[in-house]
């Protein structure tokens, strides 16, 4: 690690891990009220935590890889051929869980290892497990490197606007900035309808001792026009060969406003060339009930319909700089 600096981790940086024979997944929907982990034992339960958005963004990636470890253990009595089939079925179920995140790009790597082990007559469980653990370690190292890059990007006196939640990295960068005596502040959009900005970003930035102010999603223009922010940093769920990316709904209008007000717009990406451009990214349209109700209570008594697209696509020309992580094996 650069400068041998010890980085304090946010719980959202690595929100899922294997503990014995279960996968523990941080239930992000309960934060900030509770820090509670859900026990996941198999593919069905893994798909459920993803679909119900108990975890999201990088957490989904961890759930995917660790679910293969669970199924390798669950299928230890199976023949090599049957075990490969089981892993293939796991991949297919995970790929169908939500449409926008590139699940197939991750699962195909793991099923490729299983096929290779079968072809080489190696022990599939040992071979695939070793590769999954190595892959995770590599990703962890590269994400920690990126935290350093984000900290370098943030200068003394900066006021950073962020949207939704970038899975620990921004909060950890904020901590490094503090250690470097930089005076910085953050504005977080609340990020309706799940309020990840309010519940996750504010929570983890506060835990790191950062100065954070919450705004409504409709106040972005106001803070930009009034000069209250001088940088935007957001995450991404999927990247394209031409540099376009998909991220939480609301990101597009923030990017357009940043361009209009000449505010640098940075995105944390996982480069991929599997999709040519943003128009090809499938966008998840979620149930209107998630928008029209909050904690099981309707937000209006009027007769209304709802429309809830889960993600936005941002064109590459709106990006000042992509802060990339190499997601290779």
């Amino acid at each position, binding site marked *: 690690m650069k400068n041998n600096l010890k980085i304090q981790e946010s719980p959202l940086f690595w929100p899922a891990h294997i503990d014995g024979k279960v996968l523990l997944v941080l239930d992000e929907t309960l934060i*900030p009220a509770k820090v509670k982990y859900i026990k996941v034992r198999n593919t069905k339960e893994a798909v459920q935590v993803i679909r119900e958005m108990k975890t999201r963004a990088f957490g989904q990636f961890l759930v995917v890889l660790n679910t293969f470890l669970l199924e390798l253990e669950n299928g230890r009595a199976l023949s090599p051929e049957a075990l490969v089939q089981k892993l293939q079925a796991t991949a297919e179920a995970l790929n169908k869980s939500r449409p926008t995140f590139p699940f197939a790009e991750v699962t195909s790597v793991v099923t490729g290892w299983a096929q290779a082990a079968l072809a080489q007559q190696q022990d599939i469980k040992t071979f695939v497990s070793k590769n999954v653990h190595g892959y995770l370690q590599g990703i962890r190292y590269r994400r920690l490197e990126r935290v350093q890059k984000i900290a370098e990007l943030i200068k003394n006196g900066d006021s950073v606007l962020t*949207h939704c939640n970038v899975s620990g990295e921004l909060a950890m960068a904020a901590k490094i900035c503090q250690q470097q005596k930089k005076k910085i502040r953050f*504005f977080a*959009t*609340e*990020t*309706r*309808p799940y*309020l990840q900005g*309010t*519940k996750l970003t*504010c*929570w983890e930035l*506060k835990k790191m001792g950062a100065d*954070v*102010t*919450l*705004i*409504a*999603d*409709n*106040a*972005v*223009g*106001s*803070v930009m*026009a*009034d000069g*209250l922010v001088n940088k935007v940093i957001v995450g991404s769920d999927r990247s394209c060969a031409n540099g376009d990316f998909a991220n939480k*709904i*609301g*990101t*597009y*209008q*923030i990017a*357009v*406003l940043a361009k*209009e007000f000449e505010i640098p717009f940075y995105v944390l990406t996982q480069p991929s060339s599997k999709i040519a451009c943003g128009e090809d990214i499938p966008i998840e*349209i979620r149930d209107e009930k998630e*928008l*029209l109700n*909050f*904690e099981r*209570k309707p*937000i*209006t*008594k*009027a*007769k*209304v*319909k*709802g*429309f*809830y*697209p889960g993600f*936005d*696509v941002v064109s590459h020309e709106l990006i000042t700089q992509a802060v990339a992580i190499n997601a290779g094996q």
Partner: protein
Amino acid sequence: MQDNKNNIILIQGMVDESLFDLLKERGEINVFILEGRPRLKAANILSKELNKRQITPTLIADNMAGFLFKRNLVKEVWVSYQKVDKKGARCDTGALVLGVLGKRHQVPVNLYPAAAQKGAQGKQSDILSFNGVRVAPKGVKGYVPLTDWVPAKYISKVHSCGCCC
């Protein structure tokens, strides 16, 4: 959603209800409303006014307008204003977002009088809760601007009550 191509009337802010009579006269039924955080007044009051005119609006969160613009779904935008002069208008918060999006996507942005005047700032506590439930962690500050200044370059037309032609 593709059926909505350039067909959506997007409304932002607490416009005077007379706008809905005019839209009804024009036969506009595909009305989308931004919910209007922090107090969700648009979701509650405007939706009920539209219901009275047999229009069932589609509600979206305040961060979803960009999606509609990017997919060329928006026909025109109506935002509420408090005051207007040659340089621009003081509008309910969120209007600037729609003004900039309208300019980028060449969608007309119409100003219509607001139902009521607002102060400059709302209460911090409003943004720390949602629908009456505290959602923000302890110690987090809130910033609640209630109006945006929208420069004239983002405004297509300013209307007065009862006139949208």
